[in-house]
């Protein structure tokens, strides 16, 4: 199994892309006031931290060593007052950063979600759901962290380093030079560590999710594993994965452990240099004890800002990768869009005409070629044929989820691309094979068809669709929760609700994809009744799986390989003894067998149930 397939989203470009960085920073533009405030606080805090060290030096040198109690008092008071200001600033930047972080995430998620809703089906066809989910969930978080906390840390760290250097200069320029020489070394080492650590931890997370996947498959597929004697091979593969995870985690832990000591050792070199040179200077009177103490304090403390810069730098690379992927989502253009000057004709009533329509999802694989078909206003069309033959494509084109690549589709005599998408979608009712319900109550789900419908209208639609029968058996009736994705309802019940939704929407064109899975007889009868209610007087397309539907359709169209193989009424097509004849015969047999199922499961001893049939 190649990892690239499963984890392509983890790839990231390690280049520091200036354009992406600029675009990222633009996310902060609406909040530039807040950004300025928290950055100012960061600079202030950093400045004060360095100043505290300097103050300590003064207290030691001018106060304690010189025995000036008065000065000690004044300096201590100054220290205390500054501390209060310091605390206030810390509060401000943490508060703003936290708030801003969520704000940026919110903005990005909202923009991406809005954009996703505008994108055409073709985008969804080629983009895995998991990829989109990551863009909407983990990427904004990663990016906002770098944009807020990362920016804060870097600002604080850089200020801290610069201010420390400034203060050091006031004490001794020679010593400052030594520190300035060692600083880049520490920085390079720290960046190296942080990058490696991030990679190892990311790998170990990746292996972890692969391990979960393997567990899942090998447990659910245990019959195959055992009958194929794959136990040992699977164990080897699993060992490989856990081994990789172990190695990454181990390296990660080792690097974390090594990081601080390494940086500390390098700073120790600096401290040693300062102690040696400073000691010599003190002995000749060029420097004070407090001065050396302050220097050592600056150097030891400087490890933290340097390490922060290194960490943010490493995180930044990942955030840029996240940002690139999010921007790629935001930059993708919907394929089906309103043309300029599109006008809403006010109704779609009239014939629907496919005129020399060519269509493909993938240019190498044409689905429809020079397809012509006229559907009369109010006609019910049953589409039958093997999977992949083009039934759904026709429906998708009617709904204008896709547009013909060549040729045109006329509605009421007008090319539908001259209308806005909303003109079509608002007059379209749809029942999917496994209808999608949203978590919420039954009432809310029906009302999804027309948001301003009254409760009475919702219930009337439920009556017409046949849904009322089962809704009324529920404890809370229309206020019963359907569960996430309608998980608490059967497919048949979902279809009934979906029909009610369509009835409420009062569409001009109705599209239904019948469920292939078996639905109990009573529900099926109700669905049938609901379908008839919706189809009455409306142009309807049904991707049909049930014989009763097919038989009642005005016209049956058998689609295979993107062309119409057979077309006509039930009786006409049966006489042709072609594809439809075979299909119908086979399905009729299956339905009979299903209705005789109880007989197959009868006790062979025969206790008389047989006679009942």
């Amino acid at each position: 199994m190649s990892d690239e397939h499963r984890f392509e989203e983890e790839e990231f470009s390690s280049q520091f892309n200036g354009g992406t960085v600029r675009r990222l920073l633009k996310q902060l533009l609406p909040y530039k006031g807040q950004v300025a405030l928290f950055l100012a606080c960061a600079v202030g805090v950093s400045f004060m931290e360095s100043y505290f060290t300097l103050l300590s030096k003064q207290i030691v040198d001018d106060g304690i060593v010189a025995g000036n109690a008065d000065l000690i008092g004044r300096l201590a008071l100054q220290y205390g007052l500054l501390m209060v200001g310091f605390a206030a600033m810390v509060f401000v930047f943490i508060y703003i950063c936290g708030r801003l972080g969520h704000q940026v995430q919110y903005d990005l998620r909202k923009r991406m979600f809005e954009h996703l809703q505008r994108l055409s089906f073709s985008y969804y066809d080629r983009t895995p759901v998991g990829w989109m989910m990551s863009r909407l969930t983990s990427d904004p978080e990663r990016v906002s962290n770098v944009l807020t906390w990362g920016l804060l840390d870097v600002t604080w760290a850089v200020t801290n380093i610069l201010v420390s250097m400034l203060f050091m200069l006031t004490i001794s320029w020679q010593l400052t030079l030594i520190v300035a020489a060692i600083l880049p070394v520490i920085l390079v080492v720290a960046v190296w560590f942080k990058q490696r650590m991030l990679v190892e931890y990311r790998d170990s997370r990746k292996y972890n999710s692969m391990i979960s996947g393997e567990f899942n498959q090998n447990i659910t597929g245990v019959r195959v594993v055992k009958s194929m004697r794959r136990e040992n091979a699977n164990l080897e593969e699993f060992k490989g994965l856990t081994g990789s995870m172990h190695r990454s985690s181990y390296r990660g832990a080792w690097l974390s452990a090594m990081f601080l000591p390494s940086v500390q050792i390098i700073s120790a070199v600096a401290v040693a240099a300062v102690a040696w040179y400073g000691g010599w200077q003190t002995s000749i009177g060029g420097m004070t004890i407090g001065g050396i103490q302050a220097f050592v304090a600056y150097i030891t403390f400087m490890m933290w800002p340097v390490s922060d810069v290194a960490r943010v730098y490493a995180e930044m690379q990942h955030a840029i990768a996240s940002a690139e992927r999010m921007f790629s989502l935001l930059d993708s253009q919907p394929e089906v869009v309103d043309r300029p000057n599109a006008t809403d004709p006010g109704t779609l009533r009239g014939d629907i005409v496919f005129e020399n329509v060519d269509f493909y999802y993938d240019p190498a694989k044409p689905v429809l070629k020079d397809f012509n078909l006229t559907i009369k206003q109010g006609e019910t069309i049953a589409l039958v044929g093997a999977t992949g033959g083009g039934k759904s494509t026709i429906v998708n084109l009617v709904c204008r989820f896709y547009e013909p690549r060549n040729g045109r589709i006329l509605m009421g005599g007008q090319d539908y691309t001259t209308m806005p998408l909303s003109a079509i979608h608002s007059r379209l009712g749809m029942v999917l094979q496994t209808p999608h319900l949203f978590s919420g109550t039954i009432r809310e789900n029906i009302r999804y068809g027309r948001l301003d419908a009254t409760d009475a209208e919702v219930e009337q639609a439920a009556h017409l669709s046949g849904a009322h029968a089962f809704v009324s058996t529920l404890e809370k009736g229309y206020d019963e929760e359907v569960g996430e994705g309608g998980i608490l309802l059967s497919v048949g019940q979902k279809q009934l609700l979906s029909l009610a939704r369509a009835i409420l929407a009062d569409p001009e064109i109705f599209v239904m994809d019948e469920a292939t899975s078996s639905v109990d007889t009573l529900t099926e009868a109700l669905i049938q009744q609901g379908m008839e209610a919706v189809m009455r007087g409306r142009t309807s397309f049904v991707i049909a799986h049930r014989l009763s539907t097919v038989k009642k359709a005005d016209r049956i169209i058998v689609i295979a390989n993107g062309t119409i193989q057979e077309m006509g009424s039930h009786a006409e097509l049966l006489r042709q003894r072609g594809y439809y004849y075979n299909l119908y015969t086979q399905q009729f047999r299956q339905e009979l067998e299903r209705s005789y199922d109880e007989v197959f499961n009868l006790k062979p001893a025969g206790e008389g149930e047989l006679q009942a049939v």
Partner: protein
Amino acid sequence: MAYDRVMDIIKHPREPLGEAEAAPVQAVQGAVSFQNVAFEYERGLPVLKGVSFDVRPGQVVALMGATGSGKTTVINLLMRFYEHSGGDITLDGVDIRQYPRDFLRRNIGVVEQEPFLFSRTIRENITYGVGRAVSDEEVYAAARAAAVHHVIESFPLGYNTLVGERGVTLSGGQKQRVAIARTLLKNPRILILDDATSSVDSETEAAIRDAVKQLLPGRTAFIIAHRVQTVMNADQILVFDNGQIVQAGTHASLLDAPDGFYRRIFDMQSRIDDEVEKEVGS
């Protein structure tokens, strides 16, 4: 707590795959015999009660009966997924408990009703469990015989297409044909087929039937069947009910028993044929 739960799994006795009293040296011939076999998944709830039958190498045996009548249990015992609690099961005259499980399963191939495919490439799914390096030609040949080659070729990535959420979703009939290809490559002497053609369209049904024909020659086959059409040519038909074989014989001999289960299924199916004829004929 967590530790205890982990240990619960670890302490559970393992299924020994390798050890057995006599490691077989000869190739399997495929003679299977059940003598008075009994089994219960739960104490006091027998699912097989004294099941006996003899199968000669190369014979095709159809197992019929309602859900829960014991058909699947027979298969589970033959694969040694479970150990029978009474009677004898022999393969080529030797008690199957004398064979290592590993050896048994290498020689028995299963095509299930809803085959489980792994989220790997189609090629990996076909070569799954073959246990040796397989050339592309062999994979294609198996897929062709299973009537699924052209379906796979129609995917942009062909045999490297991933199965599942990140790749293609295969239909029930396609999955079954991939499983048949997988079993063809494994080339077992004994074959177990769960006939599930009732849920696919007629073209697929024909394709699966052809694929199965490729599988049968030279193997002892057990077919779990639901339709008379499937079992008519079987060498033996065993009708199960409530853990027992209530009828055994060939299509012709079973039809002669007027009150038998088989006869009634046959009549039912004839009646369906008549009704179909009446509905569509004119």
